[in-house]
């Protein structure tokens, strides 16, 4: 009985670890997206000056 409980708990722990890792992967993608957006706006602010509209 205790052995079965150990098995179930270990499976539960492994499953939660995998789900948490998948959540972290999504968070990483969102963070990268925000970072790219911030970098894009920063580049925009650096590139676009009054001469841009004369092109």
């Amino acid at each position, binding site marked *: 009985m205790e*052995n*079965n409980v*150990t*098995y179930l*708990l*270990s*499976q*539960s*722990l*492994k499953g*939660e*670890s*995998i789900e*948490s*890792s998948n959540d*972290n992967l999504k*968070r*990483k993608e969102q*963070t*990268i997206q*925000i*970072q790219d957006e*911030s*970098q894009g*706006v*920063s*580049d*925009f*602010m*650096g*590139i*676009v*000056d*009054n001469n*841009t*509209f004369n*092109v």
Partner: protein
Amino acid sequence: MKKIFILTIFGLIAFSNSAKAAVFTDPAVLAAILQQTATQTTEHLNQLAQEIQAVTTLEQQLSSTQGILQLAQLNAQGVDGLQVIANFENTILSANSVIQAIQSDINTSQNLPSQWQTVFGSLSPYIQNTSTAFTNIDASDKLNTASYLVGDSYQKLYDQNTATVAQFVASANQVNEKRCSQTNRPRNSRAYPNGK
């Protein structure tokens, strides 16, 4: 006579430059042309020259358009260096779009970068936040890996326990069979049918 001569030249030029010159075979149109004065004919010749000039300009624009099309095709094929051009064009389009949206806050006759700073603010905190987020996510990933390994180690213990129990059951069955054979009693079913 001079008028007719000029009209004839004009008719020949118009006929040779346009397939639509066939409309001059219409008697009504031809009569209208013949009634034109020399001044009107000169004006028409000038208009024709302007149209030729317009066609030439259009051809140049078309050539430029084909060049842009080729650039766009090369860009779609992923040729190095062209992405910069596309990005810059996108930047200009974005700038126009943004300025239209916040026209009351931006004055294009003044220095733009400082005005962008006023509108968007400093993005340094956002960049710093992403670094912090990556650090936290990495720590969480390490914790998840450790948790998985702990769960895996418990599962190995379960497998070891299961193997040990199976050995005990096999030994018990052997002992039971030996006892039954020594006492000549019929063998019972397994003493421990289940291994767990």
